[in-house]
């Protein structure tokens, strides 16, 4: 009889497998977490300020207060995720000690290290990381990420960057799958990712971990579009609780994500949702304020 082993890649990526087809919602209070769970979220992301407020208020954005994370964990029974700053391995140690179910090493917070990401293989708790392209995704997986989310541009309500990033990752995977084996060595060099991982993606035509989309999803149609573009699921940050009717919008995005190919369902759930979050056009953002450019 084998011993029980915890923290293997299979167990870490396995939880992400179970979240597929679902919506993960940013929440900043236990009350919001309750709304998210009632609406059918597969998990909640506990944080102190949603990205739209981080953008508006500025300053350094850090890991949440442990009291807030504990309060949200007490409120809901679905998995609870929380964000650590890029490279801040001690924030990650704290979040692991708090027994969150997933850590997001996130560009939405202020980076703690502009050179290194966290060595995620040192942890039992799994990590999700953002990526704007395939090379970035593979570097995060090499560091131990068990789930990837395309970055989009958080806190804008503008889905265009999310679209760009999922399309980029998908088309780079397809290009890799079309290559001959003797072309993969240069591909690994160009992607700045380990050859073995590049070879695996080429042979299997997919990432070895689940790929969600994040950053700018604000409507049911946005969520369904991301699913039709090949996402395994959707993160919604500011889009729900910065809108006019969070309860109905949360339910509508859950339904549209599950029935993402059924335009009649998407039309039905899009009715009467009130105001979407006001939003910022990504093109109006000065480059230093673009979160997607954090992480490398």
């Amino acid at each position, binding site marked *: 009889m*084998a*011993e*029980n*082993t915890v923290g293997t890649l299979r167990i870490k990526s*396995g939880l992400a*497998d179970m979240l597929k087809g679902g919506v993960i919602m940013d929440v900043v209070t236990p009350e919001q977490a309750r709304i998210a769970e009632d609406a*059918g979220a597969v998990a909640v992301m506990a944080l102190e300020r949603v990205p739209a407020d981080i953008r508006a208020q500025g300053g350094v954005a850090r890991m949440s207060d442990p009291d807030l994370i504990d309060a949200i964990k007490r409120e809901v*029974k679905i998995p609870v995720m929380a964000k650590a700053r890029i490279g801040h391995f001690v924030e990650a140690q704290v979040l692991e000690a708090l027994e*969150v179910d997933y850590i997001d090493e996130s560009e939405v917070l202020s980076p703690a290290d502009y050179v290194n990401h966290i060595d995620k293989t040192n942890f039992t708790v799994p990590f999700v990381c953002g990526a704007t392209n395939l090379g970035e995704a593979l570097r995060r997986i090499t560091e131990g990420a068990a789930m990837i989310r395309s970055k989009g541009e958080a806190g804008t309500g503008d889905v265009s960057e999310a679209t760009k990033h999922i399309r980029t990752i998908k088309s780079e995977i397809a290009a890799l799958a079309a290559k001959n084996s003797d072309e993969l060595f240069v591909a690994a060099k160009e992607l700045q990712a380990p050859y073995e991982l590049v070879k695996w993606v080429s042979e299997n035509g997919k990432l070895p971990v689940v790929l969600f989309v994040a950053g700018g999803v604000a409507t049911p149609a946005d969520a369904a579009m991301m699913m039709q573009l090949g996402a395994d699921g959707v993160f919604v940050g500011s889009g729900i609780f910065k809108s006019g009717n969070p309860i109905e919008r949360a339910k509508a995005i859950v339904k549209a994500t599950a029935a993402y190919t059924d335009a009649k369902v998407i039309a039905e759930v899009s009715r009467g949702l009130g105001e979407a979050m006001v939003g910022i056009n990504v093109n109006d953002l000065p480059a230093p304020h673009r979160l997607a450019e954090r992480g490398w």
Partner: protein
Amino acid sequence: MAGNSPLVGVLALQGDVREHEEVLSELGVLHRQVRNAEQLAEVDALIIPGGESSVIDKLTRIFGFRDDIVAAIRGGLPVLGTCAGLILLADRITGGLDDQQTFGGLDVTVERNAFGSQVDSFETSIDMPAIGGAAIQSSFIRAPIVRDAGSAEVIATLPSGEIVGVRQGNLVGISFHPEVSNETRVHDWWVRTVVVPSLG
């Protein structure tokens, strides 16, 4: 699977649908995704995958599909449930959401998320006498436990004695995920000993 393969549906509202489909493909068993009552009516058996049990429950109600699943189970449709699927097949659950419902069918009490948070999730191998051979590779991910097996037959236990697999007639529920462990023998056993005989 040679000859007349049954058509196995995988409930495809949320969860690890793809992994179950990959196991069925590897076994050569015909399969399709089931998202509504029309598709359910076409299959010979159903797999309820892992996922978030409360979300799968909600989606079957939102899409007006729950009563059809319950009726199919009552009517003898062979069903395999893994993790969330076990919870959804249980007549009674503890640790669920306040408004959480199940399809029922297994006369058991299942505790949702019984091992703790994700850092307590684990891999192991367990003996399943009904299947025989080497121990079964299994992943327990925020997994449930059968606290009372009622009139169901126990088919899998952990060394600590916890019940993690039950069968009652055409219904099989397990706490773990052979489908994420490169383990095909549980699905193969279920198709051969439950699904195929049910076709008469």
